[in-house]
């Protein structure tokens, strides 16, 4: 029997011990009317060989050319050692480290992870992960509402240049708690939010301001001015950042005079494969003073009964398994293995390596932009600096162009016009070229885009 080790003899002995005549009898407390005899709608089982073949056939349907899509998930080089070590049975098949003495491996690793994230963002403390970037922001918003004692409005301002899926996720998750999300429009010219726009809220009770950096269009927000505004108005600042960009961009802990209060984001760029959107991991960090409002697991360094250093889950009183309905969050299972991989990734790449990754992403996307905007009718949608993603305006509808690029084995970015009323007429294409792209890739993309536009326009 697949994965069940019982021999006939085992079964008989066990049934005798229990004192029943058959396995069915073990279910005799379930009302008869409810019991089913077999599962409908499930095909017959297959051997591992047949399933392997099936899955390779399916995988072959997903074969793809060069990917220039970013928009929240980024193709980066992942050193082979990362998943080789993370996939060791001792990491992969361990449970949540509630039994600290039997989980020092995972616990120490998570403590190292917390340290790396806190240092990367210049924040005081990090938790041990949330689900993903968008849901991490939702948790950050809930956390800000709990943490900001000066504000009673539960009003959150969000820059309109935030990833639209993040905004939707935040809305789905905080909706029921009477939290109001106000979206600040971005400048149609710059694709970023002009801090002056915030003047409209000068007189209001604002709980927090959410600042993405870089924003959805790859553009760079005026983080210092925005943070200053928030702090001047007793609002907390929530930073949503790309961790790779942190190698070159000012980190949240340095924003404004006193730094962002909470910084979160998507951990995927740190060694996690694209894999259709997950499992990734959300990270969240904050100032020390807010640590008791932090959601999710936190590892602390302590000592054992011999005074030897060890690690264990701490501040558990924040969590659902202790605090139940009064917990800071309902999160329980998080993204442990992804964080394991990310920790190994960060150790391997080092900050120096991360900086080279960031610089190559920057260089490739800028080179791509310059190649593409040499094509007549193609131009930048916004002005201003950007990191590794750029929004372009095409001379015709985006979808048919993308279809043509597909035929040339290019996933040429995404059509972002549908996301914004203000971009509906704009034929807006968002492209990204990470360090994984060669110059030949960029040139090929430009050639094919030219050709596609030629036949479409």
């Amino acid at each position: 029997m697949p994965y069940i080790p019982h021999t006939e003899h085992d079964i008989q002995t066990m049934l005798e011990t229990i004192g029943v005549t058959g396995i069915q009898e073990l279910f005799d407390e379930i009302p008869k009317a409810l019991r089913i005899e077999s599962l409908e709608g499930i095909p017959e089982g297959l051997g591992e060989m047949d399933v392997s073949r099936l899955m390779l056939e399916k995988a072959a349907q997903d074969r793809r050319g060069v990917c220039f899509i970013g928009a929240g998930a980024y193709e980066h080089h992942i050193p082979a050692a990362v998943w080789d070590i993370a996939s060791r049975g001792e990491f992969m098949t361990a449970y949540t480290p509630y039994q600290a003495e039997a989980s020092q491996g995972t616990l120490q690793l998570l403590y190292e992870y917390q340290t790396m994230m806190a240092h990367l963002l210049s924040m005081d403390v990090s938790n041990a992960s949330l689900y993903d970037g968008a849901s991490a922001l939702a948790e950050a918003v809930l956390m800000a509402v709990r943490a900001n004692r000066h504000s009673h409005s539960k009003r959150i301002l969000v820059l309109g240049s935030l990833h639209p899926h993040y905004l939707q996720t935040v809305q789905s998750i905080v909706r029921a708690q009477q939290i109001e999300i106000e979206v600040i429009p971005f400048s149609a010219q710059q694709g970023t939010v002009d801090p002056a726009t915030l003047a409209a809220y000068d007189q209001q009770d604002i709980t927090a301001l959410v600042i993405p950096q870089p924003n959805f269009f790859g553009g760079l927000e005026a983080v210092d001015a925005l943070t200053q505004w928030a702090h001047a108005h007793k609002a907390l600042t929530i930073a949503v950042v790309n961790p790779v960009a942190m190698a070159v961009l000012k980190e949240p802990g340095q924003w404004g005079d006193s730094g962002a209060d909470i910084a979160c984001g998507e951990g995927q760029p740190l060694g996690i494969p694209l894999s259709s959107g997950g499992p990734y991991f959300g990270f969240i960090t904050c100032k020390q003073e807010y640590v008791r409002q932090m959601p999710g697991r936190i590892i602390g360094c302590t000592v054992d009964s011999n005074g030897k250093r060890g690690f264990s889950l701490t501040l558990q009183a924040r969590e659902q398994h202790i605090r139940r309905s009064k917990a800071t969050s309902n999160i329980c299972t998080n993204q442990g293995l992804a964080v394991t991989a990310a920790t190994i990734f960060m150790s391997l790449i080092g900050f120096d390596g991360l900086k080279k990754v960031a610089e190559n992403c920057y260089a490739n996307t800028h080179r791509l932009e310059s190649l593409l905007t040499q094509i007549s009718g193609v131009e930048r949608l916004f002005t201003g600096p950007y990191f590794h993603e750029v929004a372009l305006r095409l001379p015709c509808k985006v979808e048919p162009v993308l279809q043509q690029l597909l035929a040339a084995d290019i996933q040429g970015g995404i059509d972002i016009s549908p996301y914004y009323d203000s971009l509906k007429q704009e034929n807006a294409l968002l492209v990204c070229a990470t360090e994984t792209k060669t110059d030949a890739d960029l040139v090929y993309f430009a050639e094919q885009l030219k050709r596609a536009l030629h036949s479409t326009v």
Partner: protein
Amino acid sequence: MKLIFEISQRHRHAAVQAPRPTDISLDIPKELRRTSEPQWPEVSELQVVRHYTQLSLRNFSIDTNFYPLGSCTMKYNPRGVHKLAMTREFLQRHPLAPVEQSQGFLSCAYDLQQMLASICGMAAVSLTPMAGAQGEFAGVAMIRAYHQDRGDHGRTEILCPDAAHGTNPASAVMCGYTVKELPTGADGNTDLERLKAMVGPQTAGIMLTNPSTLGVFDQNIKEVARIVHEAGGLLYYDGANLNAILGKVRPGDMGFDVIHLNLHKTFATPHGGGGPGSGPVGVSQRLKPYLPIPMVTRDEQGYRWLTEQDCPKTIGRLSTFMGNAGIVLRAYIYCRLLGKDGLHRVGEFATLNANYLMVKLQQAGFTLAYPQRRASHEFIITLAKQAKNLGVNAMDFAKRLLDYGVHAPTTYFPLLIPECLLIEPTETESKEELDRFIDIMIALLDEAQNTPETLKNAPHSLPVRRLDDVKAARELNLTWQPGE
């Protein structure tokens, strides 16, 4: 063991992993740029490999240890499932890749939606929640959306049994509800009289798991459903215990309106030291419009996404993309491997193992929480007697088990049973392994009587002795600082 930071050397690095330096200079305004370096480790590739390999050796895991951890379903998750889910093409697929180049993945997701719906007896499934707790959130949010959609605004309460997992009340609160705790009857079933007294026009719904976290099947379930439904509330099923009844009984048939599943318990995703998991939600017909997006559908052109355009009443999006897609793949592969019959057997053998262990432990002198009842896939023993007479509590037993190479059962949960161990052997463990566990438990009982200090000071043979949790919480040290 040293921290990775403590073996770091300035200017060391794993050189082949970084791309070449670029010659382009960054045209980014100075005030937007980073000026300091974080204290990251600077280490060689061998140092990284050795450090994290060594760390891994300081863990218990299914691959190395028996893990009778109640409520967590720590069973063997086939290596084949993992390997196939890690197929290059699947790993490389961008979440926003065009559907034309995604039919392989989409077909798996679609088929899994169908299979899970039929396993649970539900009308439809959304795979997007990223763990059980997010599934709970989605489920309760749908209950809320349903009532609101009907203009039924007075329902402000969710009922949870006192034995419920902590995520249940926490999720209900995130959805804006007040939680009322429902006491359990002495037989482990829902106390129907109390239930009747508690439901009313304020009741939005009830969150249950059946078999419950007490390790017994609530025989009154149909009656519970009738009472709650008649009061206008809906029934939420916490699918964390689905392993117990896979192919035996379907939550939909019991009268539940909405369910979440823990793919990382029942459907072949290893726990990864804390995650990731996946918590798909299934619903009956009336809740279908509210399912979280995206989902996958199929039409003449093939498989495609369902988004808010297709589902105007959806509770919305819960993650940037579609949740933990890789875990979804694993569940699909697992279902195809086991098939109809294999899945059916899971519940049977999980239950057989639990009942065998329960009877043997009782014979060995342990006190069962519900000696009159069958075990489901798990059961509870209480060490209240030992705690009182010998001063050796459930935690001491748990820690001492570690010395014998067995992971401790779940301790002190559910909260209503004093000094309890919640024991779940799962279907993938052999009789010999169970017998070995029984022998160890007998040895522990003996130690408790004769050398109680051995238990109280346990563990003795692990990388660290018992840890000082109080110090950890009092003198918070959450981030290593240079020079520490």
